[in-house]
């Protein structure tokens, strides 16, 4: 049964999920784990890994086959991101940003012509996609952006800059949010599909980061960048509303990213605690360590339930503003806690690059920040609770 047909939630993993899980797990073990530290150290974007993930269909998981996608639902999507993130959170983020943000924006709000033109190359991974909302002076307050797109004949002329854009330098297609009507504030924002080779599309500084170092996070600038009017997504001035809808789904993928990090850090800690001997016995025999393991495992399971529930509701077509925020907020905070304890369980060894928890500890901090900070998630949740 296709998970998208499923109407009753189940705590059991479906046949589909099992198969994609095995696939993603095998792939992560064999193709990512052995080489990833090299990319982490050099901050080089692993194009080779992304090419292989593309061949498997990971760049078009949630899109219909008619556009070159794999045609799966959010349950399989979340499963894949979790498994890949267990090996490398940056590659999990690549799948998440490419599928949920760029490609999904075009899929959800683009017209048939735009979908036919852009989706096949995005779904096949031939082109990597980016999504540009954040600016140097507008982060959480995305509505205060300054980038403009002024109509001039058959073109919109983009001017301004964007910050922290995932796939900013390796992307070939970017969905850009910009103001078309200054008088309307955030209600004057529109969304555009921009080919990165358009004159005036400038790739600026690539960030040197604490974690997620094999992910490409880059500043962009637009200098009289002329985008054809047929690249406007949906109607003018609907961009901000579109972006918020896209983020509702995107948060599920960051929750899955967090879940993978937490599970990966936990698995490593459980194993290590049984091997490391102090005071004549494995450290797993000390109650202080046992309690850490219990807390970590329980919170991960709770985060997983929230994440899978949000994915399930998304498949059903329900509104998921609150549910996806809860999942993202909780899973990301749990992941930070779990990686912290994971390093603690590893002692000094966890502080070295010979153990994967060191990397998780650095990578994890992004998940409480990207696609809305934890504070912003709480703001979204409370707005839904209070209906303000």
């Amino acid at each position: 049964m296709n998970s998208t047909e499923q109407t009753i939630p189940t705590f059991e993993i479906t046949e589909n999920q099992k198969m994609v899980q095995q696939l993603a797990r095998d792939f992560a073990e064999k193709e990512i784990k052995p080489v990833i530290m090299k990319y982490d150290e050099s901050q080089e974007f692993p194009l080779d890994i992304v090419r292989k993930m593309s061949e498997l269909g990971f760049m078009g998981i949630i899109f219909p086959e008619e556009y070159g996608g794999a045609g799966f639902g959010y349950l399989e999507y979340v499963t894949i991101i979790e498994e890949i993130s267990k090996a490398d959170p940056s590659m999990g983020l690549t799948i998440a940003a490419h599928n949920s943000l760029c490609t999904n924006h075009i899929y959800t709000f683009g017209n048939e012509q735009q979908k036919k033109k852009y989706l096949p190359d995005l779904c096949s991974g031939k082109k990597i996609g980016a999504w540009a909302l954040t600016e140097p002076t507008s982060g959480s307050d995305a509505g205060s952006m300054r980038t403009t797109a002024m109509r001039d004949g058959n073109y919109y002329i983009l001017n301004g800059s964007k910050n922290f854009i995932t796939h900013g330098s390796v992307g070939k297609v970017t969905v850009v949010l910009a103001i078309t009507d200054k008088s309307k504030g955030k209600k004057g924002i529109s969304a555009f599909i921009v080919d990165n080779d358009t004159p005036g599309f400038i790739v600026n500084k690539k960030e040197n980061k604490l974690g997620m170092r094999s992910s490409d996070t880059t500043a962009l600038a637009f200098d009289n960048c002329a985008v054809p009017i047929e690249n406007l997504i949906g109607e003018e001035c609907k961009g901000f509303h579109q972006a918020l809808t896209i983020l509702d789904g995107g948060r599920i993928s960051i929750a899955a990213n967090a879940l993978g990090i937490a599970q990966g850090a936990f698995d490593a800690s459980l194993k290590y605690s049984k091997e490391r001997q102090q005071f004549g016995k494995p450290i797993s025999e000390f109650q202080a360590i046992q309690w850490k393991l219990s807390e970590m495992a329980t919170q991960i399971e709770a985060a997983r339930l929230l994440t899978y529930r949000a994915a399930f509701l998304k498949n059903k077509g329900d509104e998921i503003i609150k549910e996806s925020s809860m999942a993202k907020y909780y899973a990301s905070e749990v992941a930070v806690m779990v990686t912290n304890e994971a390093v603690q369980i590893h002692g000094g060894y966890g502080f070295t690059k010979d153990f994967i928890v060191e990397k998780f500890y650095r990578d994890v901090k992004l998940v409480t920040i990207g696609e809305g900070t934890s504070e912003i998630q709480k703001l979204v949740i409370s707005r839904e609770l209070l209906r303000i």
Partner: protein
Amino acid sequence: MKIVVCVNHVPDTEARIKIGADGKGIDKSGITYILNPYDEIAVEQGLRLKEKFGGEVIAISLGGESNKETLRKTLAMGADKAILLKDESDRDSFSVAKALSDNLKEINSDIILFGKQSIDFDNSQLPGLVAEMLNLPSVSVVVKLEIENNQVVCEREIEGGHEKVESRLPVVLSVQKGLCEPRYPSLKGIMAAKTKLIEEKPVISNSKKVEIVSLRLPASKGTGKIVGTEPTAAKELVRLLHEEAKII
């Protein structure tokens, strides 16, 4: 070309094996099963033959309902059809071979591919037994394969080298690591597998000839020994490996 691949559903290589209550089998609870790794290579080889010569790849497995998982994986990798010979009664290699060959006779394929061994019981008996029952030539432990105009040229792994042998189609081959690298089943493949058929056939006869009397786990490995940390310790290490461990 009609290609058949015989596949087994075996405990994951990382599974922790415990002996069952009767002392004659393993405790199957909590064990995850996988497509036998050598059979994965056989599937890949089958798919490559199909890509070169056209035709179809049929995967066949004898076992219980759960073997369907393994068959579904072969379908996701690209096999066209799968057959489950359904039976959960106790069997030995001979009775598995008999049931397989009875069915293989009807399929009448050009080539029958096996893994070189099943990593559960490691008998390496099935390919030879099946070839004999079908009165077909067989080549084991194949690491290189070329087929042209019904002529089959294989290289097989032997102690310290490779042996080159020739045969003709139809043939039974058992394959070894190194022959080819199995592909991952893509998401598209997994999706496509859902519409492919797993045909179920009951197996009634069981001509078992061997009885398992008891099963036990190997003695646990002793703790390691550090001979020394200086370069001079190398000599002592070599002596111990040679005289005590007798492995060099």
